[in-house]
Structures are given as C-alpha cells and as structure tokens.
C-alpha cells in the first residue's frame, strides 16, 4: 500500500494548494454523504464509497484513505464521522472534510467504521478513479503511474472512463500504459491483451520489460509470441539507451579530463614546458573553493549558491599567481631542458602538497554543492545529474574561452609568436620573458578553475592533483602536443572509451587497458592524434 500512501501524500500536498479554492459550501454539501458512512453494513458502505467517489471532489480522497486504513470512526452520541488519530488514551478527532481538529474523545465514545477486503478494493478503485479525474494533470498522471505499478485489474474500468475524458496527451499516454499493465494482469481476451503488449512495447523501459517478462513466463500461443517480440524490441531499445548512457558518462569523464588537461595543453603543448606541479594547481583551486565556502558559511550563508562563481576568479588568480611565481623562480632557468624541468616541477609539487597538508590537514575537506548543482533529471531513459551537466558545459566554455584568448587577442598572438620563434619575436619588440610568465600563469590559472569544478565531484584532499596528472598528460600526448583541438578530442575519446570498457572489464582493468592502448598508440603515432607534420628538422 505504500505506493498509495505516497501518491496520496502528494495529492494532499497538491490539493493543499488547489483545495483552498474549493468553496466551503461544496464541502458542506458532502457532509451528509460522509455522515451516512456511520450507518449500514459492508454492502451499503460500498455503495456510499462509490457515491462519494462519484462527486469527483478531491477532498474526498483523504477521507477514503482513512477509511481504508481503519482510521475513520463515528461518535456514538451524534453519529458524526471523524478521522481519528491516537492521542494519549483516547483519540484526537479531525473533521474529515476540512481537516480541522474538532476535539477529543475517549475510546469508548467512538466506533470504528468496519472494512473488509472487498471494501478495501472498492476504496482503492474509488480513490483511483477519483484522482484520475482530478483537475490537476499532475495528480492524474501520478495516479495513473501508481496504477501501472499496482497492475490493478479493478482499475481498468475507471481508466477507460478517464482515458475517454482525458484531454492532455501526456497524461493519456500514461493512463493507456497503466491500462495495458492492468489488462495483462487481468483475464482479458486475446485482442485486448495483444493491444496491451503493443502499448508496453512502445513504452520501452525497464518497467515495461519486467512486466512483459513476467507475463511471457506464463503466457501461451499468440500472446507469448507477441510478448517475446515486444521483449526483444525493448531490449534493443534499452541497449541503445545504455549506449547513450555510456556516452553520456564518457563525455562527462571526458570533460573532467579536459578540464584537468587543458591548462597542461598550454604549458606543455604550447610552451613545451613539462609541469608536474600542474595537478597541484588544480588542487589549490579546489582548496580555494573550500575556503570561499567556509567564509560564506560563517558570515553570509545566503551567498552559498554563488560560492562557485566567487571562487572561480579567485582560484584563477591564486593558481595563476603561483604558476607565474614558479615560472619566474624556477622554470625560466630550465628552458630547453625538458627533463630537468620535469624533475624540478615534481619537487615543487611535493612542496605544495606538503604545504597544503600542513595548513589544512591530510583529511578530505567538505565542499558542498550549491542547489543548482544538485539533483538530476531524466531524458528518455537517461538520468542526468546537474553537477555533471554543468561540468561539461563549464569545460566546453573554458575551452572556447581559451581558444578565443589564443586566437583573437594580442596576448594570444604574442604567445604563438614566442613559441614559434623566440628570437624573432624578441627582435619584434615582444617582451618574451613576460609572455612566458603570463602564458604559464594562464595555464596554471585554468588548472585553478578546473579545481573549482572538480571540487564538486571529487574529494578535496592534498592528493587531489596527483590523481589527475598522469591522465592529463595522457590526454595531451594522445591528442597531439601543441594542438588544443587535439586535447578536446583526446579527452572526449579517452573518456568515452574508458566508460565503454568499464562494464566489460571493470573500472580498474578498464583504466589499465586504456593506458596500454595509449602506450601502443604512441608507438604508432609518436606525436599524437593531431600531430603537426613539418619539414624534417636537422639532427
């Protein structure tokens, strides 16, 4: 009965709003019908329930629900009917129509209106038809969905009436599906059932599949054949949706990889600097988010929904600043010596990790999701969570923004000039050291804002960056160094491939396979997917 309860609860909530419009006299006109319940045997009660339902007034629903649960009693003194709630030794009396508390009564003062199983069934049907007729389409839809789950053959009749009257296409569809479910559960004729199988087949989800599988197990002849056919059809469409879901997860993982790798694509891809502390820039971005949220929690909780927007520029500036300091302090002395750069930046990453560990402690920090990033919605058979969706959007925005900066701004022009021919650029009057520092700062800053996004889906701990560094390098190398589009395609490909491998190989083995795949791939195309071919350079 839990489904009934839950949908009635919803109903009460809904009618709580719409019910206010219903005039008081409407309710009072029901009063005699309600009080009539105090009289008569089961047979009469059944008739009375039907009469109440026939009014189509949603206010009747809680009353019938109470009746079904045995909570409807009448006062012996005046035969007035109340919904009762245990209160101490006696009962609290609640008016069945207005839901106002109408006093108390001891146990001996009231008598329960008796129900048996037959009556309960009628109540359920009455409730069903009552809600199927409700004014609010959402209520009607919920009711139909509840019937679908209950597969109650008794509801077929009320569904038929409701379908005939229904004006909303969406709701009618749900009602027809509910009817089909009920029909399969009843002992209807061939034609009726085949039609029902058809309806369920076009529904195409797991619910329909389990219904049909259950049915096919006991069905015979033409019906069984039809059901089996429907099952294959649903399985096919489910497999399609499954692929779509995998692609979605893959794109989601790909966007995370893209965020982590895109800063690296600049420092490694454009500048040729191997920055092993890149992951720590991401980690610092995540900690900036944490600090911003801490401050908001303690001083301005109403700003919480904007915490990420506040953290973004801060993370960019802080990570970017640290990046520039690293470039000026260490990396600039090592240009042209990539292996040394790799080692020095690894040392820096160790120090940054330890610094964060000393300041914030080694444990995970709590970073909350703002309301617009929590929850999920459904698209067909896909479940899409808001945080994943926003991260994909965000990753693409960052990518587009970066492309714009590099292609359309003077800074981007200078950067490309310096990376292509440093001496020529210098002789054109470009301050190459500044461009180096700014480019490195840009790459690091982007890592910082990636950290803001990743704080929403990953544990914020000093080791956060370590988990991304190898993957990010793989993405950049796979996509082709020096090519941002390659990074995009590389990230998405690796994300999707990873998610498609997971169901077959498991998460860990999937990851290993991807690594092996990349190792083999680099053998074939040592310069990545989108390698820039050039004139063979001298030894």
């Amino acid at each position: 009965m839990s489904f009934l309860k839950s949908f009635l609860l919803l109903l009460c909530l809904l009618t709580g709003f719409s019910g206010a419009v219903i005039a008081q006299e409407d309710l009072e006109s029901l009063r005699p019908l309600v009080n009539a319940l105090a009289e008569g045997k089961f047979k009469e009660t059944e008739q009375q329930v039907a009469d109440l339902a026939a009014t189509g007034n949603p206010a009747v629903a809680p009353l019938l629900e109470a009746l079904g649960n045995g909570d409807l009693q009448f006062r012996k003194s005046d035969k007035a009917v109340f919904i009762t709630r245990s209160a101490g030794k006696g009962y609290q009396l609640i008016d069945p129509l207005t839901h106002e508390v109408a006093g108390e009564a001891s146990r001996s003062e009231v008598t329960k209106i008796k129900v048996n199983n037959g009556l309960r069934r009628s109540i359920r049907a009455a409730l069903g038809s009552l809600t199927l007729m409700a004014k609010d389409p959402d209520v009607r839809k919920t009711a139909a969905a509840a019937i679908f789950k209950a597969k109650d053959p008794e509801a077929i009749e009320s569904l038929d009436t409701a379908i005939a009257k229904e004006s909303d296409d969406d709701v009618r569809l749900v009602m027809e599906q509910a009817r089909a479910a009920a029909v399969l559960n009843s002992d209807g004729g061939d034609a009726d059932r085949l039609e029902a199988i058809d309806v369920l087949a076009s529904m195409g989800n797991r619910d329909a599949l389990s219904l049909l599988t259950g049915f096919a197990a006991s069905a015979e002849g033409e019906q069984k054949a039809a059901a089996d056919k429907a099952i294959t059809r649903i399985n096919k469409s489910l497999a399609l949706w499954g692929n779509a879901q995998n692609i979605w997860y893959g794109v989601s993982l790909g966007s995370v990889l893209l965020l982590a790798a895109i800063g690296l694509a600049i420092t490694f891809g454009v500048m040729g600097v191997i920055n092993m502390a890149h992951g720590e820039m991401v980690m610092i971005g995540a900690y900036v988010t944490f600090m911003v949220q801490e401050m908001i929690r303690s001083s301005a909780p109403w700003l919480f929904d904007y915490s990420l927007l506040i953290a973004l520029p801060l993370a960019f500036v802080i990570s970017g600043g640290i990046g520039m300091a690293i470039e000026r302090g260490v990396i600039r002395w090592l240009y042209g010596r990539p292996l040394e750069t790799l080692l020095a930046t690894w040392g820096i990453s160790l120090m940054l990790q330890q610094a964060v560990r000393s300041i914030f402690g080694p444990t995970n920090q709590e970073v909350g999701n703002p309301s617009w990033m929590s929850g999920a919605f459904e698209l067909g058979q896909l479940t899409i969570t808001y945080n994943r969706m926003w991260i994909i959007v965000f990753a693409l925005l960052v990518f587009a923004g970066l492309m714009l900066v590099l292609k359309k701004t003077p800074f981007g022009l200078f950067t490309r000039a310096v990376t292509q021919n440093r001496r020529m650029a210098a002789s054109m009057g470009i301050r190459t050291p500044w461009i180096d520092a700014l480019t490195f700062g840009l790459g690091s800053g982007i890592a910082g804002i990636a950290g803001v996004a990743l704080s929403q889906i990953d544990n914020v701990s000093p080791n956060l960056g370590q988990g991304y560094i190898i993957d990010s390098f793989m993405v950049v190398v796979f996509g082709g160094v020096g090519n941002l589009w390659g990074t995009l395609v590389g990230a998405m490909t690796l994300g999707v491939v990873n998610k498609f491998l997971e169901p077959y190989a498991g998460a860990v083995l999937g990851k290993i396979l991807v690594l092996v795949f990349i190792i083999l791939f680099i053998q074939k195309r040592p310069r990545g997917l989108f390698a820039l071919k050039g004139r063979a350079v001298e030894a």
Partner: protein
Amino acid sequence: MTRQSSLLYLDGVSVSFDGFKALNELSLVIAPGEMRAIIGPNGAGKTTMMDVITGKTKPDSGEVYFNGVVDLTGEDEASIAELGIGRKFQKPTVFESHTVWDNLELALKAPRGPFSTLFHIISGGEKTRIEELLALIRLSDKRNELAANLSHGQKQWLEIGMLLAQDPKLLLVDEPAAGMTDAETMETAELLKDIARTHSVVVVEHDMHFIRALGVKVTCLAEGSVLAEGSLDHVSANERVVEVYLGR
C-alpha cells in the same frame, strides 16, 4: 644513364608536408666516382633531398636506388649508412662530450651491433687509420680535446673526418663551408677534391666561390625539382636560374 649503371638514382621523387611540396617530381642521377654540386635558393628542397636519400624522410612517390639495385625507400637510416652512404649535416653535429679521437673511433668502419661494440678492443690497424684521418683533418694535436671545445671550422672538419672514417661509397655533404673564413673555405674545397678522387660526393653549397673552386658538374634545384644541370657557367647563364636567385 641507366639505373643499373648509376650509383645514385632518383626518379620522380615527391615529398609534401601538410600540402607544402618540398620535392616535386625530382629526378637526379649520380654516376660512380662522380662529384656533383647542388645549388638552389632556400626552400628549394636540398636538405629534404638529403633526408630522402639517407632514409630520414620517406618519399610520397618516386624511386630512389643506390648502386642501381638497392631500393633506399625501404631502408632506415642505419642500414643506409651501412650500405655506404655517409652524410655531413648543415650544422656541424659531432659528439660533443666525446674526444676527437672517440668521435673518429665511433665513425670508423667496423661491425655496428651492440655486442660487437661491447667486446670491441681497438686494433692496431684502426689506430693507424685514426692517426691518418687526424693528420688529414689537421686535428692531430687536438685528439684528446672534447669535441665541444673545437672551433666551428674544426667541428666541420672533424665531421668530414668522421664521414671518411665510415669509408662510404657516396658522401653527402651539406654546406661544408658555412661559417668558415675564406682561407678555410678554399682548404675545404681542396680537401673535398682530394676525397672525390676515391669517393663519389654530392655537395650542397650556397657559396659560388666554393663551387667554382670545386669545378664540377652543377645541378640547380628550385621548388623541389631540377631547374638546370651542367657546368657552373652553363647553369649560371640559364635565365630561369638567374630568375629564382634574384627573385624577379
């Protein structure tokens, strides 16, 4: 000349990088014992041609044969070097952290496998040969100097010495006179002429004085194919050669 009787035979070789045609239907034949000078403006495809012959770049189309029978397009750098084609780079590349002696010893014709070199003990004959080469390239007193400490001209000579140590049938020499004084340039020309007596040589050079000093057949390349071929006077009288050089 037919392919069979040639030492080096290039026919219809094309190479392109991202749409840019570095070599365009290039055909060139070098006879055994010949010395040939190749000239051409920047981007004419001289270095790419060397890359194709030595196996560094694979041609998109065309034939490259050595000794008339060996298809070079199927071989890698190491095996082409072992076949007897030596190359000197435009920028002198010697092994800077090795001594002059060691540079020559490494280049000396000997088995090239890891295990032969692991157990290799230098023989008297090899020592004599290195001494000879040191004398030839005038670095005898620098034998224990690190190659990194040599002057630019000395590095060029050391590289030529290494080329000779390989004892190749064909030498490809890319701008040997670049960065040399006039006196050094002339000495280098003499050295190359000396070498040409016993080897086939292809020289790429910009310096017309140098080419004149060599006094050999000249091929002018432009935009990836042969523009003119013949004596230097013949080639420099060619109107189109003048055109590409002066950029009219």
